């Protein structure tokens, strides 16, 4: 389904749209309040951008350095060219440990690779331990936001879901009670887990360590209790030096939720004595994106979600309308790189207002990339013949001033003289909820010429 179709369905319930829009605008507002207290914020963004651009330009060497250091630390490093290989690797590690119960903290990469169904097919229980992720897991839905996975769910919906799956009492959606019940339910899962899977926020070349950021403490509860910790990361998570975290940890949480830092920023370097730690480094289309000069900066992304919170379209269409692992503006420049045809409507799900590029903590030129994807999509995927021809006609018309004036005259006459019912009839989508201006009798052009004559 195209984005616009999904968005139209979402917009059938205007109250829900208003609710969704306000919830996310509130997060954007918290972000604003927080970043405005940071002196040199724009310089910090420049640094974030600069370090990421530098890293990509030397990524192979940094990955080699990272692997070397991680191995020295006693960590086992694996490489996967695609999602399938990633899933196999994780599965193998779990099998070697006879792990049947796995807790997983937030990782968009494992979503992208569809790891859960892969493991579940072999009878392995995978529990998403982030509260929002657990909610959508129980609802059998994908996350609708990368930082706030269940932002599309009302508290009443969560209440009903927990009653059904966790046996909670009806509570009118009391978040305090529901969170408390989730804590108890997941505590049990943490204690019983045979293995823990986490994502990676940053992988550091000069230490071989990884950093995982959470507010709930779920990554740590999993990783420190289970005998095996598997951390999955895309190649672009790398940063050269630990000191660079000074820049990125200042940017990340403020951009994401307006917090000055997440509650926990855990630096994993060596496995616990008697435990194992694995890192799976995944490509899955990233090196392809690296090969595209116009789009490679999309790999700078640190997954803060700020572009979603600020996007007026995302806020009013919901994350599921994008039908992609990563929704919103950043998803709309990443997804076409994976499957141009499937995601061809996403770069058009934007007014190119540019707010995404301005909130981005690593200054990805998101709206410019949306524009560039549009140019590619019209050439490389089948387009409606009517759109194609009308664009060609428009191009011709605007290159020939005389013709333009003639057509303009007819259009203005029609707007003035045709009944509203005809103007706003079905083929005119504009007129469904909007009036068109009343066509003026004379164009500016005609007025100017007359004025010249009278001078």
């Amino acid at each position, binding site marked *: 389904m195209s984005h616009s179709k999904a968005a*139209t369905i979402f*917009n059938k319930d205007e109250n829900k749209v208003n609710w969704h829009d306000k919830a996310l605008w509130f997060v954007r507002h918290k972000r604003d309040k927080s970043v405005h207290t940071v002196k040199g914020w724009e310089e910090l963004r420049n640094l974030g951008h600069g370090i990421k651009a530098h890293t990509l330009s030397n990524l192979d060497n940094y990955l080699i350095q990272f692997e070397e250091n991680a191995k020295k630390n006693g960590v086992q490093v694996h490489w996967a060219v695609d999602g399938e290989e990633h899933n196999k690797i994780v599965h193998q590690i779990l099998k070697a440990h006879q792990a049947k119960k796995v807790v997983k903290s937030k990782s968009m990469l494992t979503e992208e690779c569809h790891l859960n169904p892969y493991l579940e097919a072999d009878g392995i229980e995978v529990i998403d331990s982030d509260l929002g992720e657990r909610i959508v897991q129980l609802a059998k839905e994908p996350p609708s936001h990368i930082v706030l996975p269940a932002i599309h769910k009302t508290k009443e919906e969560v209440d009903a879901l927990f009653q059904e799956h966790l046996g909670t009492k009806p509570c009118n959606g009391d978040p305090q009670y529901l969170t408390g019940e989730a804590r108890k339910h997941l505590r049990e899962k943490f204690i019983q887990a045979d293995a823990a899977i986490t994502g990676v926020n940053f992988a550091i070349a000069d230490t071989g360590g990884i950093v995982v950021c959470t507010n709930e403490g779920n990554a740590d509860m999993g990783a420190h209790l289970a005998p095996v910790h598997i951390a999955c990361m895309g190649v672009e998570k790398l940063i050269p030096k630990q000191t660079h975290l000074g820049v990125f940890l200042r940017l990340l949480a403020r951009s994401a939720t307006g917090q000055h830092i997440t509650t926990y920023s855990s630096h994993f370097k060596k496995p616990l004595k008697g435990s194992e730690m694995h890192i799976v480094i995944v490509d899955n289309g990233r090196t392809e994106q690296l090969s595209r000069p116009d789009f490679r900066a999309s790999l700078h992304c640190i997954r803060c979600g700020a572009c979603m919170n600020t996007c007026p379209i995302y806020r009013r269409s919901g994350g599921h309308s994008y039908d992609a692992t990563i929704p919103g503006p950043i998803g709309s420049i990443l997804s076409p790189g994976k499957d141009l045809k499937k995601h061809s409507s996403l770069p058009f799900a934007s007014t190119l207002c540019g707010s995404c590029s*301005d909130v981005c903590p690593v200054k990805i030129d998101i709206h410019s990339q949306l524009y560039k994807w549009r140019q590619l999509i019209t050439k490389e995927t089948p387009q409606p013949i009517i759109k194609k021809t009308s*664009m060609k006609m*428009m191009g*011709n018309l*605007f290159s020939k001033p005389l013709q333009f004036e003639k057509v303009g005259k007819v259009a203005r006459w029609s707007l003035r003289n045709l009944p509203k019912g005809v103007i706003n009839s079905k083929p005119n989508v504009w007129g469904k909820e909007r*009036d068109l201006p009343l066509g*003026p009798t004379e164009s500016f052009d005609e007025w100017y010429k007359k004025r010249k004559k009278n001078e």
Partner: protein
Amino acid sequence: MKVGLFIPCYINQLYPQVGKATIELLERLQVEVIYPSGQTCCGQPMANSGYEYESVGTCNNFVENFKGFDYIVTPSGSCAYHVKKHYDIIPQTDAVTKVRNTIYELCDFLVNVLEVKNVGARFPYKVGIHKSCHGLRGLRLGSCSEKVTEPYSHIGTLLKEVLGTEIIELSRKDECCGFGGTFAVTEEAISVKMGKDRIQDHLNNGAEVITATDTSCLMHLEGLVTRNKQPLKIRHIAEILNSVVD
């Protein structure tokens, strides 16, 4: 100083009063304004729809018409931005570079080239400023709420000096109105919702008039206001600045 006036295609055909106000205002400020008769459009409608290559002829026509001026002024931030940002699809001749460097949105031209603030206008209404995105985040005609910078606004600077005008504050200072070119039609549901939300913000804060640097946004907002019979007037900033003291 020789100034070429660019009147965007939809203003030419549908909102000639905006073009008239622009030319009268500039002439009142002693600017020699010429309107080259062979102009049509900047090419944006095709380009933003993904058909940049169909706009090459339009771009060339634009450059042909405007290469001989010291400045090009247009009552549209969006068109000025398009010429500046996206005219990299045609060979970068001296003429093209010059056109890209000398095109100005009207308020930008008044504040930064003519260095005027008070244009001697009178407009006794409560006015809400809609900060059109391409002018704001593209041309930086004002500070953007996302960025940590000193606050400024060219349109605000000019409007503040207008006799009788009271500028109202909005809850969301610079959210997009949802026009977005063909977006207005291809993503009709969201486009309309965004426009309705913007209008409501202006109404909630007591605006009698909504103004902007771009008629495209205003056409979309006016379409909604008219259809829903809301108590708001829509005026391009050129029309307000040209409301001379009687």
